[in-house]
């Protein structure tokens, strides 16, 4: 069996075992909460009776997965270099409000309008991530602490802006404040056509967010960048062995800034699916927490775009069940317990499987070469 295939199978097997264990742990939690685990898991897989209900369920799940996928990508870019960008949370919120506000100031043909909004979001996210990067390379400030602090600033700044300078007109009876509504040229077309192609009814509400396409393209682009380019190689080398990277002419400070800004720029896009595809403004009820969930998604997906996509879909699948669980008389916080358990167990499983794969590779090389035991002088 080729080493790559073996590693992939091992990873999948590890993840599967981790998920089974997570189910067991969640069952205990559900029982303790006084509900029936069977009912809970039935609700998890119950997408509804009618075609329309199934379509709605699938749409909710994918719509939830899209921002999580982008958040996972953002975190993974930092992780690849051993940079822990916890600031994704703040970066995406500040980027989202700025993009929503700027996008509402003018009206251009749709592709340009949307492109400008995307660029503004990426630029704001990248610039906000530049702050901890500069602090790290010039003063050695740990990026974890800097980004956590910057999160507080960003979250509260966004809350202030939406009530103050960036606030738009409030519609009659509207309880929340929000930025001015985007012109229709900024409304990202939905993908409901996909369902109609199969003769299924269109989902209700905003439908299947068209930003899904952008997210997929972004995933491919990140993969190409990290796996195929010189920059990606330098990121990988810096992450695996910073000393060797330095001796090879990779500039560590430049890499920290580049990776952090890239991570922030991707983070800037997290809020756009919701803004462009559904709400058309940034309101005080804008979805929070995506940045923190992105850390879990990146961990689960082992920092690889395909893995992150799977992890995002899994999280979307679990989150979708919030409603059905309530109907089944199960506290929906069970979902959070399950997500936490899965992340923890998968991280442990990943560590075990990657060690197993490394050891197998060592044995295989040794077997193929006969003797040749490594000789190290520990003097």
């Amino acid at each position, binding site marked *: 069996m080729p080493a790559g295939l073996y590693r992939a199978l091992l990873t999948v097997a590890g993840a599967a075992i981790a998920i089974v264990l997570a189910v067991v742990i969640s069952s205990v939690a559900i029982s303790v909460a006084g509900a029936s685990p069977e009912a809970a898991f039935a609700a998890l897989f119950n997408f509804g009776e009618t075609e329309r209900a199934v379509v709605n369920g699938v749409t909710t799940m994918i719509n939830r997965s899209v921002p999580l996928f982008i958040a996972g990508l953002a975190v993974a870019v930092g992780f690849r270099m051993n940079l822990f960008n916890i600031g994704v949370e703040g970066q995406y919120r500040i980027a989202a409000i700025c993009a929503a506000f700027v996008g509402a100031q003018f009206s251009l043909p749709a592709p340009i309008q949307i492109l400008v909004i995307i660029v503004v979001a990426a630029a704001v996210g990248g610039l906000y991530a530049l702050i901890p990067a500069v602090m790290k390379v010039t003063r050695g400030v740990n990026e974890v602490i800097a980004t956590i602090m910057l999160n507080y600033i960003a979250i509260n700044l966004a809350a202030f802006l939406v009530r103050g300078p960036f606030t738009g007109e409030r519609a009659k009876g509207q309880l929340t404040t929000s930025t001015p509504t985007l012109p229709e040229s900024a409304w990202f077309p939905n993908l409901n056509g996909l369902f109609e192609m199969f003769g299924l009814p269109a989902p209700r509400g905003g439908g299947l967010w068209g930003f899904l396409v952008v997210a997929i393209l972004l995933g491919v682009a990140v993969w190409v960048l990290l796996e195929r380019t010189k920059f990606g*190689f330098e990121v990988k080398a810096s992450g695996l062995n910073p000393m060797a990277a330095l001796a*090879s*002419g990779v500039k560590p400070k430049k890499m920290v800034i580049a990776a952090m800004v890239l991570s922030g720029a991707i983070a800037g896009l997290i809020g756009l699916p919701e803004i462009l595809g559904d709400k058309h403004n940034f309101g005080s009820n804008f979805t929070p927490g995506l940045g923190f969930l992105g850390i879990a998604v990146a961990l689960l997906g082992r920092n690889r775009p395909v893995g992150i996509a799977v992890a995002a879909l899994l999280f979307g699948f679990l989150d979708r069940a919030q409603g059905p669980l309530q109907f089944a008389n199960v506290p929906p916080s069970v979902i959070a317990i399950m997500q936490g358990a899965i992340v923890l167990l998968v991280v442990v499983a990943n560590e075990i499987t990657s060690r197993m794969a490394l050891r197998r590779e060592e044995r295989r090389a040794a077997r193929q070469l006969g003797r040749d035991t*490594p000789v190290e*002088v520990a003097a």
Partner: protein
Amino acid sequence: MNADAPATARPAVELEGITKRFPGVVANHDIRITVEPGTVHAIVGENGAGKSTLMKILYGMQKPDEGTIRINGTEVSFRTPSDAIAAGIGMVHQHFMLADNFTVLENVVLGAEPTTVGVLDTARARARIRELSSTHGLQVDPDRLVEDLGVGDRQRVEILKVLYRGARILILDEPTAVLVPQEVDELFQNLRELKAGGLTVIFISHKLDEVLSIADAITVIRRGTTVASVDPREVTARQLAELMVGSELPTPETRESTVTDTVALSVSGLTMEADGFRPLPKGTPVAEYTAGLRAEGRRLLLDDVSFDIHRGEILGIAGVEGNGQSELIEAIMGMRPAHGTVELAGADISSWSTLKRREAGIGYIPEDRHRQGLLLEASLWENRVLGHQTRKPSRSGVWIDRRAAKADTQRIIDEYDVRTPGVDTLALALSGGNQQKLIVGREMSGEPVFLIAAHPTRGVDVGAQAAIWDHLRAARAAGLAVLLISADLDELIGLSDTLHVIYRGRLVARLDPSDVTPERLGGYMTGAISGSTAEPAGEEA
């Protein structure tokens, strides 16, 4: 035991037949040392001779495969350093293990805090520290922060730390390596007082002048075994040096010189301060500035190092490790700022980045391949790209050319006989020798004009060693200039066209490898012969 020896004078430490094997290597073999109580006993030997392993065994960090350890006549078997501490052994490490933001007192008691109802009893600790300092002449203010202390004071804190834990036998691992001469004098004064207080000191060093001035007995270790126990009053530094290096030096193979007249690399006035790089004040010439540093008595890691390497020449640097070799490499590679100039093929590259230097044709075989040379968890072809990520054939535009990189990795595997299942194998799966051959092949790629080879055959098997030597010779014949840094005298003498000796950051001697005697080489390397009395550095031999 001698029948006439009084019972009170049982040896403090007795090591008998200590043998320690690591996979493929015997680090210690049949070591025999007897340390009398109340003496300073020096253990000397070159780096890699097995001193560190021996001390780790004595301090319980490693278990010997064979042999016995007796402390004060009682046979012991240590499993952890705690066992050794309980038996009254204390270790002062070469690199201080102190918490900078703690006071002296806090550092001393750390891990053995006296408490009253769970609260740190500072009064009791302070009293005990004061008592220890005054009885042993180790004057340090217990309430000062360690970060405000000088190197000598920090060392005293380390000694206090082990004394506080009740040590009666102190191991000092190369304690003078970090000290300036005045501090060395102070340390020796402290050691004499410890000795007077009935303590036993085991002093590990390779600086023979120091050893001769402080030790009451000397044991020499060479190639993992004890070769002699001598009385410092009856031995000269030269004799000691000869014992350390061995009396048989290899004779270089007769071969044609390929040295040309073209200078490939020229280094002049390279100087590096120990306490961080400071930019030159405007308008001050480098020489004047560095002379000022010397006058101030600052510790210099590199001190006015100058040499030329011609095309087709291998210039060897001999020296005991830690005398500036790593710093010299880092300065030439542009990884650490230093004063002075480095010229490659006539171009001043002093201000160039590491990347630009590499692109200009500097190859680098690092001294520690796992730390600086490899991405262990990446494939061989990715390791081939490392350091060449901006050059053909690894790169085309913004892309890494995977196909070309893999093809070129296969070329290295074939030409350099790297034994591996394939180019996609992870680097960590290979043995040390094969990893090193891959690095050598990589660094010889892209037609380098100058190669730094730091310990190119360290930790590799004999077959790989011979192959790497052949590759270096072939490259030299093809016109490559090589800076060879090694602790292996066979390697240095066998390969070098010119041999320099580095000692405390200075090139102290330039020797002809075909005509070098062990005592002279050993003398220069260990500082037993000082540079001023011999031919000055840089002079044509």
